[in-house]
């Protein structure tokens, strides 16, 4: 049995966005690993299984959709929770992400504190913790993206 701390894999080709998200999650006490593209993400997943993947969808080379499909098609990695993180927030995008196997979907710009809380829930409660992301999405769709950021 491994005692290594569970880690969150942040996948995004935008270095600024990836680093800022990783920096915040690290500040919250999570162990974070970064990948700049789908290929690197798949490689890291096979080397050491992450607890959660925050996956940008549109990336050069193997994009988030394809990387998720490959991860979900492999019996050894299919149970990893993949959360799609994208600025493309129209309804079809969420459908495509879920078809690719993403377990949840979060639209940019997001409330970082709420996302950190939700990721914490997922780490503790596994798939049951995803309900926190659904609640976050509902709040964002009702109040407009990012409005809760001021409350943090």
């Amino acid at each position, binding site marked *: 049995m491994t005692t290594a701390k569970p880690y969150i894999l942040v996948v995004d080709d935008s270095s600024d966005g990836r680093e*800022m998200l990783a920096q*915040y999650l690290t*500040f919250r006490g999570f162990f974070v690993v970064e990948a700049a593209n789908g290929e690197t993400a798949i490689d890291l997943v096979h080397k050491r299984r992450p607890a959660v993947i925050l996956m940008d969808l549109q990336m050069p080379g193997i994009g988030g959709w394809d990387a998720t499909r490959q991860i979900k098609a492999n019996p050894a990695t299919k149970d990893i929770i993949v959360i799609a993180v994208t*600025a493309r927030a*129209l309804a079809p995008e969420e459908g495509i992400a879920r078809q690719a196997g993403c377990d949840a979907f979060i639209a940019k*710009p997001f409330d*970082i504190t709420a996302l950190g809380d939700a990721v914490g829930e997922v780490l503790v409660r596994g798939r049951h913790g995803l309900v926190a992301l659904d609640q976050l999405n509902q709040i964002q769709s009702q109040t407009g993206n990012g409005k809760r950021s001021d409350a943090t």
Partner: protein
Amino acid sequence: MLHEFITSYRDPIIARTREKLTDRPWPLASTSELEHGVPLFLTQLSETLRLETTPTPFSQKRIGASAANHGRELRALGFNISQVVHDYGDICQAITEVAVEQHLPITTEEFHTLNRCLDTAIAEAVTEHARITAESRSTEEIERSGQLAHETRDILNTALLAFHTLKRGTVAINGSTGTVLGRSLMSLRDLVDNTLSDIRMAANIQRRERMPVADFLSEIAIVSNLHADSRAVQLTIDQVDPRLAVNADPQLLASAVTNLLNNAFKYTHAGGHVVLRALHENGRVRFEVEDECGGIPDGADDPFKAFAQRRHKDRTGLGLGLSIARKAIRMHGGDIYFRNLPGKGCVFVIDVPLAGEDTPVPQNVG
């Protein structure tokens, strides 16, 4: 009777129309027009003229529907409205010419009917052509707006994350997080600038004025130095002949030059140099942006290909910047070129006319 004449002389009329379509210098006729459009229209015209002589006049709807198909087909082949109108004009002329040659007496009533049919056909074809064109533009605009929204949300998200981190007070504003925030804000500014340029060009809003190039580059330098700093790149602006001037819309020209500069900053390695220079040659001014991106491997000479190849490394930005910049420069009677420096970098060139005759043309500059 005109309808009998059209039926009897169908082949000569078609041949004459085809000659006209083939011979006309502009707009060019398509094979489809020659093969299908003309015979179909003649059949319908003949039928219309025949039924005009019966107690139940022919409905204009049929000829209109067919003309609409014709307009749709021509639009699909890339033809413009002028070509559609010319098609019908050529058919009318061919009928008249052959009728005169054959000494056919055409009554005033028949001419009225012929003109009415042509009016209907032209109106329907042009309407359909314009409808599809507008629909197509609308789809492109939606896609473009979607891209803009996507890019804005992405950058805004990064800016908010950086702001959130800075607000905690655990990192200094002049550190890497502050740099990310600054870079994000500048990217948002560039997006707004590009969008503004695009809107101004679409609305045909231009305010041209005589712009001394040295002053113009000094203003560009103020903002671009900030951008270069955020990428850890050094910007050098070569000395410019103070007599150089261009007649341009300051916002559009600045947007185009800034676009090339930002692209150069993005792909030049940290610690590298970007040079901006303005040269004069043969009544033209060349704004050159030289970077240290390492050059394009396959030596592409098309600026769009070069942009696309570099964009593969870093997709941040809309990727629409160059097309907007080129559109702006072409409106100024210029163009954007690209020069590859294998193993070193790229030079993107904006070439515009030197300011008018009231401006003294410098000698031996550049």
